[in-house]
């Protein structure tokens, strides 16, 4: 009788918990994400072509900045996603440190190079925009400086991850560093912002009305969504390769290799 009641009170697993639980298993993760990656790349490609066509061709030139404002369609989405990736990396780092899920460690660590690449895109596009607008490639203004510090933080995480030989220990150390960086990032951002406020005020806000015309806004939003799909596609592709690398001696990888060959 006792065993009966135990059977009945066994916690029922709902679909979401089961899903998260399953995603922690490398073979399942590999198979599941494999189905999405081509679609993510496709959506990214379509959105980018559409967004860039609107932004670079369709939208009229700005009356003040001329044609150079079009760099914004690359610069601003890259800046947004570079900050988003850092916060996602820190959240995943926290999950990885607390629950020690290997997939999440890999996801957090594979985010870092993508985020670093986006900070470089942001800085390059920003300085190319700065030349015609401010008359110089580099200004020590608040946003450029915080983006530069963000790049250094990314490089620190990547450097630490690549210096430690044992992959799981490396991932945990780098995740902790990402978390420390995330705690510091708002402080860095506000101190730098306060330190120098040469940059023009931010012209898009989610709460208030935005001060740019909606025809100019659309391509920006399309590009912002495109970068998210790029991140997802790139992250999953990288993580799958990393997973195969780490599990090269496991049977599920061998099975996949056998299927492929």
């Amino acid at each position, binding site marked *: 009788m006792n065993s009966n009641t135990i059977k009945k009170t066994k916690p029922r697993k709902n679909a979401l918990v089961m899903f998260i639980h399953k995603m922690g298993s490398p073979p399942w993760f590999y198979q599941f994400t494999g189905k999405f990656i081509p679609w993510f790349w496709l959506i990214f490609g379509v959105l980018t072509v559409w967004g860039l066509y609107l932004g670079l061709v369709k939208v009229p030139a700005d009356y003040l900045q001329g044609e150079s404002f079009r760099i914004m369609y690359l610069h601003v989405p890259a800046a947004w996603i570079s900050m988003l990736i850092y916060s996602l990396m820190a959240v995943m780092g926290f999950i990885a440190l607390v629950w020690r899920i290997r997939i999440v460690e890999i996801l957090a660590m594979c985010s870092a190079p993508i985020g670093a690449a986006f900070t470089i895109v942001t800085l390059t596009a920003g300085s190319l925009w700065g030349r015609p607008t401010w008359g110089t490639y580099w200004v020590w203004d608040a946003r450029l400086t915080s983006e530069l*510090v963000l790049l250094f933080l990314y490089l620190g995480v990547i*450097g630490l991850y690549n210096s430690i030989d044992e992959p799981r220990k490396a991932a945990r150390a780098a995740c902790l560093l990402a978390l420390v960086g995330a*705690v*510091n990032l708002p402080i860095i951002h506000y101190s730098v912002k306060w330190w120098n406020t040469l940059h023009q005020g931010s012209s898009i806000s989610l709460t208030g009305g935005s001060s740019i015309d909606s025809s100019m806004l659309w391509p920006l939003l399309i590009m912002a969504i495109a970068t998210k799909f790029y991140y997802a596609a790139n992250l999953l592709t990288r993580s799958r390769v990393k997973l195969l690398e780490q599990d090269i001696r496991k049977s599920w990888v061998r099975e996949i290799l056998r299927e492929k060959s």
Partner: protein
Amino acid sequence: MSAVPVGGSLSKAFFALLRRDLLLAFRRRTELLFPVIFLLVVVSLFPLGIGPGPQLLARIAPGVIWIAALLATVISLDGLFRSDFEDGTMEQFVISGHPLTLISLAKIVAHWLVAGLPIVLLSPLLALWMNLPLESLKVMIMTLVLGTPILSLIGSIGVGLTISLKRGGQLLSLLVFPLYVPILIIATAAVMAASDSLPYMQFLGLLLAGLITSLTLAPFAAASALKISLS
């Protein structure tokens, strides 16, 4: 397995470790002097590189002294856990039953007394070299008193993460310098405000807030970093 502290209370362990670390540091007096000499050399390079114009030197003095302090701290940081990690003492600390956070804090305090305090004590000389006015010197010393412990505290996290690497020191500077940016900005702003006879108390308040925050959080992060490195 219950973690029973072997010998006495937490404060006893803290002060015993602090005394041990200070004693060890003073037994190796020459090593102790390296960061201090480094600080003096770096600061003396600036007038040589920029020119001895007193006006210009006074203008850049806060930044130069603070950057030299950052560099000297990072140089000395590598010794924070290094010898204990290499000879296995750190493992003994972990299994001693005392919280690793407390042990990290004791070692950080010892590090500040050995590496941070000399910077504060030498700052009048550096200010003299850099032609910093006397009234700014007072603020300079206050920013160093409040700021250099933060450098040791945040640095301890970086040391904990890189300690298992053979060439951790090179990576360490990449890890901690971005985290030092706010301290550098606020501290130099305070001294510059004092030089321009503007109010500076708000900056000292910010530094104090930073000190309290890092004092409460950094030892925990350093302890978990050490645990990862020891695993």
